[in-house]
């Protein structure tokens, strides 16, 4: 299980790196699809079928919306001003090296805090289930639903569902306001 997940994650990382450096915006969006659909396979391997259904649909809708935004506008990556690499000078000059140095420094600082966060987690596959023990025992009897994730989402954690529905309504109102063509008289 770990080996398969590692291979899929490496594909996703390669797709992500290509997607941010593509010259054509349409290629960047298709590479974003690699990461999204790879995530669907990861969810299926990690025994989470609800999440796989939702992620595949949301990824498709996101891709359709973004392609319709990009397709009628400038598709090509903007021309870089040749301010970093001049002809005749050496390839490594001080600004380029400085940027890479700052990037590696920030990555090391974040890796240090990541180490503090991860060292209290148990290894992959050995979950303590300290909080979910009571949920898993009582879910079928108290809520009556055979799908325990639905029971948790709508019965034990109903407020989160209400908050999420509110966020969706607010996003729709926001999109309709931003894309208004002319105001009312």
């Amino acid at each position, binding site marked *: 299980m770990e080996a398969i997940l590692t291979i899929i994650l490496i594909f996703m990382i390669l797709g992500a790196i290509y997607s941010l450096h593509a010259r054509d915006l349409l290629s960047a969006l298709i590479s974003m699809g690699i990461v999204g659909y790879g995530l669907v396979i990861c969810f299926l391997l990690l025994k989470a*079928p*609800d999440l796989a*259904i*939702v992620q595949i*649909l*949301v990824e*498709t*809708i996101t891709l*359709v*919306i973004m392609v*319709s*935004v990009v397709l*009628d*506008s400038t598709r090509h990556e903007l021309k870089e001003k040749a301010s970093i690499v001049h002809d005749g000078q050496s390839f490594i000059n001080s600004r380029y090296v400085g940027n890479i140095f700052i990037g590696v420094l920030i990555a090391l600082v974040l890796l240090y805090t990541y180490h503090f966060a991860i060292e209290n987690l148990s290894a992959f596959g050995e979950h303590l289930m300290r909080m979910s023990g009571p949920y898993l025992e009582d879910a*079928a009897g*108290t*809520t*009556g*639903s*055979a*799908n325990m*994730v*639905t*029971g948790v*989402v*709508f*019965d034990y954690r*109903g*407020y989160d*569902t*209400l908050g999420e*529905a*509110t966020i*969706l*309504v607010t*996003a*729709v109102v926001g*999109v*309709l306001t931003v*894309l208004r*063509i002319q105001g009312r008289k």
Partner: protein
Amino acid sequence: MSVIVKKVAQLLSGLIFMYGVYIITHGHLTPGGGFAGGALLAGSMILLVLAFGSDVMGLKKRETGSSIIENSAILVFILFATIAMLVGTRVFFHNFLPVGTLGELISAGVIPLYNIFVGMEVGAALFTIFLALVIYKEEVLK
């Protein structure tokens, strides 16, 4: 789009709509639930809009109708939660209908009703967002 694309889109979108309704109503028995089924409903409508092109007037009427469906679905959802507060143990999301036996279609109290209204709300919200973008692009960015 050609005639073949339009006919196949009509057939497929009907099937996808039925599949979405199945996933919503069986949300407490099989994997799925309100959000997955709602996204499928939105997907079937988006397929129809993509295949048939866009005359802006018809799309504007659809956008108004879809926005009304979304807002009334979230209103009924909050109404159910408030009724649960007035009945029984005064808790906001209390499961007040009888629980029934495990594995039946009509069981699990008020959860199937929650699933249906959240599914309608999510589907209508995603479809409204898509229509707003398409109408704006058609009218302005020409």
